[in-house]
């Protein structure tokens, strides 16, 4: 085994569909025969499994994909072991290696260089820079004087299992909290479409706090949990539709 990946996007999608239980019987048979005969395909398959597991941890799968992956792959001891490893690895990468945002538009400095070549633009640019610097100083002053505004963002999906049953909570570093936690809760598909959700924060010490909904769309409800309600420990968010609690909890730990 080894070498550079040769899988096409179409084949990668087939593996993904297979893992979600969405492939038709003929394609499933064909894929399984490749698993039994092609060493290079085995490696590609494993790579896609890792990528899908990462997406599961980061809550990037659709409802159907998530459910399909949970009922097959993740229902096994092997799948749970892989999930735990992926969760730790992604968390470690986030805490140890994140230094600054990625530059998503390369070529900016080339553009600036070209712009600066224009003699007629220099004066206007200098004046604009002065205004920007003054504005920047004002904004920095304002942000310092009005306190922290940064919320640690965490995407959560509902789990009907509890921690003892193997549910893996999201992890938030206590040191990363400034204003608090902004939790984006994915609404279970069967519960979508309502307008009157309510969210409650339950601490490991059984303390309970009703939270205001900061944002709400078809698929998610966002709440901002102020840092004053958070200590190191385990938390669960419960979501209610009118007065009925939706089954399951959104789990996270402050470490």
């Amino acid at each position: 085994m080894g070498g550079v990946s040769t899988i096409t996007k179409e084949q990668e999608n087939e593996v993904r569909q297979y893992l979600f239980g969405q492939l038709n019987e003929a394609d499933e048979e064909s894929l399984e025969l490749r698993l039994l005969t092609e060493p290079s395909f085995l490696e590609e398959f494993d790579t896609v499994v890792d990528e899908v597991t990462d997406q599961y941890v980061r809550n990037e799968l659709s409802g159907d994909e998530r459910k399909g992956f949970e009922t097959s792959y993740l229902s096994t001891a092997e799948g749970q072991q892989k999930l735990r490893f992926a969760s730790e690895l992604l968390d470690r990468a986030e805490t140890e290696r994140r230094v600054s945002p990625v530059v998503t538009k390369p070529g900016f400095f080339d553009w600036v260089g070209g712009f600066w070549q224009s003699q007629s633009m220099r004066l206007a640019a200098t004046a604009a820079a002065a205004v920007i610097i003054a504005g920047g100083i004002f904004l920095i002053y304002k942000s310092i004087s009005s306190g922290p505004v940064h919320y640690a963002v965490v995407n959560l999906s509902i789990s009907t299992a509890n921690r003892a049953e193997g549910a893996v909570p999201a992890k938030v570093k206590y040191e990363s909290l400034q204003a608090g936690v902004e939790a984006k809760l994915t609404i279970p598909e069967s519960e979508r479409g309502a307008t009157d959700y309510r969210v409650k924060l339950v601490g490991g010490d059984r303390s309970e706090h009703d939270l205001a909904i900061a944002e709400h769309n078809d698929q998610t409800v966002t709440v901002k949990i102020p840092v004053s309600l958070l200590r190191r420990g385990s938390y669960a968010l419960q979501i209610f539709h009118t007065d009925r609690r939706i089954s399951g909890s959104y789990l996270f730990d402050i470490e």
Partner: protein
Amino acid sequence: MTTTKEPFDALLEWLDPDRDKAGQRYEVIRAGLIRIFVAKGLSDAEHYTDEAIDRVIKKLPEIRAGYIGDPARYFHGVARNIVLESGRRREVATDVLPQRAAPEPPPRSDTSECLSKCLQLLPRDKQELILDYHLYHGREKVVHHQQMASELSITEGALRTRAHHLRVNLEKCVNECVGYQGKNKSAVESHSN
């Protein structure tokens, strides 16, 4: 694995007259069966893989002479049967053939501690590569991987493969470490009782 040497030799010969090639084919079939069983939601995939291989070995004297086609196809059929049988067992929930229960997942702190230990075993550049590769998600991840590949002067495909190999070894190290710690804890607990 319960297979004895002589029938196993016959299986290898059926896979390929060349012993080395037969061994390689066997390893691929075995690895593929494990993937299939896990993907179908069967815990302890290695047990079911051994079961599939045992069934093929037992049937071999009957089928060998008249069988036409790739032996992998026969293994596939046997694997399908095992998946179906397992599904039926789960449906009727009979206790005649109980479903093998998934073992308790290890405590998260063990995995975290083992990940730290295993990362320390890697050279610095590989530690950085594996962590950097898994840093972002969505569009940011795509751009980040392009940048990483460019810095290493390799293609994105080569980067993906390199990261995968590192991850496989790291995961293996972590699983072995967690297993070792679990055994040690059990030993300590049994001594203290």
